[in-house]
């Protein structure tokens, strides 16, 4: 295990990863023109000193705009991020070109620097390590991305509704819903409205996804057209806390979106969900845009790509229980109807039932009748017989009911005892019938080691042996001198579950803990932008520029750099740094536009921002990579790849009223 590098080491390695030309280009903005020959480590140290200076850091802080803070917060949460990943966080709020150029600007301000540990195919950015702790504690906040809380707001949480899981399990046990397809049909047509009050398509869809959860979690196991309900599995799931159950539902949704990837991304799903869950604690309203940001972050952090993010967000909003922590708690603690067992054998309660002595068997002994404000389950002879079939006894059931309700009708005791007597009329054993000769029969009957494996002695030479311990009793019998035991003779073999093991619930992995610490550093509180101080700084620097006796072009260049917040101190006002202004051509400057387009063809460093005229007189802006310049006798055009979606288009230059040449990245080339 390698030691965690210090922040300075990380910074130095980041700087070391830059080519000389990029490094020197950046450097001249901060410490002026560097004469050759130069000593690069020395120059890095100079930069380190600058970025460690309290005065400079303060200037950096006051220079931050809102979008700067949002991007830097995004990068902090992602740990390291590609340009595209950062842009994807704000793509729904800003034009892509603007946000991409904002990232480039943060690069040239050295607030974002290359992550030295990112591999070549995925060049990533990270927060400047020298500034990170200060920015996290003073300037950045998760609220910049997810919104700040208003007074009295409480954070959202998302979890699965255990009541629905229990109710569906009860229906599978007692109402013969059948396999997935049949149960979906029956639920939609028969039970959705009558039991769950699901009248609209969205509510029905929610129910069907929960039903899917039961199958995905191997609670309901298909067996031909029928199903088997695993009570152990169900018990385990019902014992889980809300968050873990939510994770199962989450996993079900992901599999619904990507059915072919059922088990592929187990660990990624886990990280995704943990990230989602942690970030949700900083979200204040059920807003699709906020959720999308959270899921986008979770997707990047877990490296789990969601093919159709909008659909996934929709499913999240359809299925889960959205609850505002404090409000929800208050509601839960309000007056409730404790489980009440009435004389018509209906159990009614609000909320959900708690286990009685670690037993949670309501769904085994009764069938759900209603899931609403009040949930109702009904006990009947068939449901109790089914419970007996699942291995419960009358004593178990009565003890459970007495613990659950305190209102057990006197007659129920008699009823259940009678039903038990009736049920006991026939017992079906699952086991392996072993026929022996007389000698071996005598041995089996007295051999201590084998007694626990005998279910029934049918005759002196006929034994019903446990199927689950077959290997053990075979060995024991083998040891008695029977050299080769015959293999079992049976009509069929029991099918082994073809389902792969379900998603395991491991403890969170290190990256998740990092996120928790990070979120702790960021905090939920509002961090105000220091715009006033920033404006004041700008005005001071501007007056210094104006005071200098410079040529017009030099002054314009300095003002442009000031606006891009590349100048934070008086020492950076250096007219000799060279031209960094954005080149552009517009209007009737057709040749200028042509030249910019030609120069950008297949450029690894430049992008073109094209301002296009709409037929209705409006405009829209495209950020493009130019792939080809096309010219015939009449017209000139360019074939471009539009960012970020990569769509290829051919655009007539006539239709472009402005072209701007922009940097793709300060650090990276395409």
């Amino acid at each position, binding site marked *: 295990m390698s030691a965690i590098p210090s922040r300075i080491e990380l910074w130095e390695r980041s700087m070391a990863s830059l080519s000389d030309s990029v490094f020197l280009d950046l450097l001249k903005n901060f410490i002026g023109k560097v004469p050759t020959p130069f000593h690069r480590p020395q120059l890095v140290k100079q930069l380190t000193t600058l970025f460690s200076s309290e005065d400079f850091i303060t200037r950096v802080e006051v220079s931050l705009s809102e979008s700067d803070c949002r991007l830097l917060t995004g990068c902090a949460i992602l740990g390291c991020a590609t340009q595209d990943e950062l842009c994807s966080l704000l793509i729904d709020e800003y034009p892509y070109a603007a946000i991409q150029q904002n990232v480039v600007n943060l690069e040239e301000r050295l607030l974002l620097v290359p992550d030295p540990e990112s591999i070549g195919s995925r060049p990533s950015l990270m927060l400047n390590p020298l500034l990170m702790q200060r920015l996290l504690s003073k300037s950045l906040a998760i609220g910049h991305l997810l919104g700040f809380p208003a007074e009295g707001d409480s954070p959202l949480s998302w979890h699965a509704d255990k009541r629905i899981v229990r109710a569906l399990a009860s229906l599978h046990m007692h109402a013969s819903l059948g396999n997935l397809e049949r149960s979906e049909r029956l639920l939609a047509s028969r039970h959705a409205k009558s039991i769950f009050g699901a009248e609209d398509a969205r509510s029905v869809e929610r129910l069907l996804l929960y039903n899917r959860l039961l199958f995905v979690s191997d609670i309901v196991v298909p067996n031909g057209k029928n199903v088997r309900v695993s009570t152990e599995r169900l018990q385990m799931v019902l014992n889980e806390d809300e968050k873990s159950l939510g994770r199962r539902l989450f996993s079900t949704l992901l599999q619904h979106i990507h059915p072919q990837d059922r088990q592929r991304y187990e660990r990624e799903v886990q990280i995704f969900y943990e990230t989602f869950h942690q970030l949700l604690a900083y979200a204040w309203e059920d807003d699709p845009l906020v959720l999308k940001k959270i899921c986008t972050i979770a997707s990047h952090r877990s490296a789990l790509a969601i093919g159709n993010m909008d659909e996934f967000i929709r499913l999240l909003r359809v299925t889960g229980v959205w609850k505002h922590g404090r409000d929800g708690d208050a509601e839960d603690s*309000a*007056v409730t109807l404790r489980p009440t067992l009435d004389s018509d054998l209906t159990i009614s309660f609000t909320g959900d039932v708690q286990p009685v002595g670690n037993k949670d068997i309501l769904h085994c002994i009764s069938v759900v009748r209603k899931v609403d404000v009040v949930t109702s389950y009904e006990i009947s*002879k068939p449901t109790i017989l089914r419970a007996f079939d699942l291995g419960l006894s009358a004593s178990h059931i009565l003890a459970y009911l007495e613990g659950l309700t305190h209102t057990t009708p006197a007659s129920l005791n008699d009823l259940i005892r009678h039903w038990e007597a009736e049920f006991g009329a026939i017992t079906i054993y699952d086991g392996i019938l072993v026929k022996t000769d007389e000698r071996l029969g005598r041995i089996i009957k007295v051999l201590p080691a084998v007694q626990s494996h005998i279910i029934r002695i049918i005759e002196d030479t006929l034994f019903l042996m446990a199927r689950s311990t077959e290997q053990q009793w075979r060995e024991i019998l083998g040891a008695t001198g029977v050299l080769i035991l015959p293999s079992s003779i049976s009509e069929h073999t029991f099918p082994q579950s073809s389902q792969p093991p379900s998603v395991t619930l491991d403890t969170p992995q290190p990256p998740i803990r990092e996120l928790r610490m990070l979120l702790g550093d960021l905090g939920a509180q509002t961090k105000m932008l220091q715009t006033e101080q920033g404006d004041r700084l700008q005005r001071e620097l501007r007056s210094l520029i104006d005071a200098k006796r410079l040529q017009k072009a030099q002054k314009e260049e300095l003002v442009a750099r000031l606006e891009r917040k590349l100048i934070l101190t008086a020492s950076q006002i250096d007219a000799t740094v060279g031209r960094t202004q954005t080149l552009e051509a517009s209007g009737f400057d057709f040749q200028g536009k042509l030249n910019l387009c030609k120069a950008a063809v297949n450029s690894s460093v430049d992008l073109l921002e094209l301002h296009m005229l709409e037929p209705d007189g409006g405009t829209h802006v495209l950020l493009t990579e130019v792939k080809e310049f096309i010219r015939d006798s009449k017209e000139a055009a360019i074939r471009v790849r539009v960012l970020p979606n990569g769509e290829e288009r051919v655009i007539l230059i006539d239709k472009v009223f402005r072209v701007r040449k922009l940097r793709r990245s300060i650090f990276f080339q395409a």
Partner: protein
Amino acid sequence: MNNMADKPLIVQSDLSMMLDVHSPSAELARNDLLAFAELVKSPEHVHTYAITAISLWNAASAGIGVEQVLERLARWSRYAIPEPVTFHIREIGGRFGCIRLELHHDDQDHYLLTVSQERFAREIMARKQIAAMLKVAGNGFLVPRYQRGELKLQLIKLNLPVDDRIPLDRGEPVSLAFRSVSLRGIPFVLRDYQKMAANAVLGNGEPGTGYGTIVLPCGSGKTVVGMEIMTRLATRTLILTTNVAAVHQWIAEISDKLSIQSDQVGEYSGMRKEIKPITVCTYQVLTWRADKAGDFPHMRVLKEGNWGLIIYDEVHMLPAPVFKVTAELQAIHRVGLTATLIREDHREDEVFSLVGPKRFDIPWSELESKGWIAEAECTEIRVPLPRELEIPYAIGNKREKYRIASENPEKIQIVKDLIENHPTDFILVIGQYLDQLKTLAKELDAPLITGSTANARRDELYRLFREGKQRILVVSKVANFAIDLPDASVAIQVSGTFGSRQEEAQRLGRILRPKQQSSHFYSLVTRFSSEEEFSANRQKFLTEQGYTYHVEVWE
């Protein structure tokens, strides 16, 4: 009402409501709810009510509008009222009053139907069957008078209630009043709930009142409620009931409690055909006809009697042909009486449309707790099947199985033992199958009443039972309804009509007249047979009313 714990009501999004009866304010809340919700079930702890379209329209017709309904819900609801409930109450409840049926001045052949919302008018006219009854006239439609009931029935099936504002006919007046002391010498006082039930139907006498159904437990005095309505309307009255014995009981009660000359009360049955200002008639005679294709000759009693009031006793038994004629009698005051508004043929909506909506209902347990009906202990006794019948039972089809289980000969000895255990009680042994009942009657040396027993003989036997001269009666299902045997305190049910809930309730009702000691209802059921399942279904209504069955196995 600051404390949420004092709020006993939980409103569900499907418009059902749960009332926590142990809450101190449950009683107050219940009184508020009854005006616009129907009691679905009332077991010991949590009562269930349902808001239905019909219950909302009932409330609206009684002057309780949707806003008042919502206000009452808010007053008693423990949690916020789900949004769909508010929406539904406004959308459906608000329909009442949009369609009105009124007199059309100077037109003796038509009524005027007005529709205040264009969408409803379009919906109505889109139905050919309804449109055929209507003629556009100015702001509304003209409806032939004879189609008043049919139109209401058709519209209610579209969820469009008609606010019938046509005054009911008063009928020919008849002088009637309760005696302060009955002829039997018992002081007579009307009970509160009986008065409330009569008020619920008659209201303030305004249009929209004067018809409806009253649901009261057996033995709680539905006949008295009927007589209270008769005295308040004081008009020619036709009482329809299920059999001749019940006709005689009505006549006896009327003579006993009302100050009316005996020649003013007539019997219209298979035996006698009298039409008097107060006439009591059987459903059977009305629906009798010479052949299947022929007319019902006695239906004219209904149409031509110039009645001001018709009482439908045991309205859940109302036969289909009487429904049809009732549709033509919408101008007459109508009252349905029953203990169980459960029709096994699911025609409750026709009772609503043609006789009238349910106006009054009260949990059985409440009357029991106040002593207005007897406390009853219900016991289901599981009886083993004799060995020689096990194989016939095992190979029989469903019907045969049920028959074998019902006629289980082991039940005879158990009936004897039970009778021995109740040496001073008056006992009814009730069953379904004649062979079984004949055997029982013989074994018990008790008289048997079945459908084929002559009415005079039935009356005689009932009289002897009432007078204490006959302690045990074996009866078939003819005694399920409308037979008042006040001293009966034990009922032993040996077989029944499959899973009929109303039959079970009616049979229990035979022993619910208030008395000094508790009543006992025994249901004998063959163990490990389909009779157990049917029995469970039969018991549903009563368990929902708060009765619990103790199960005993007869070893």
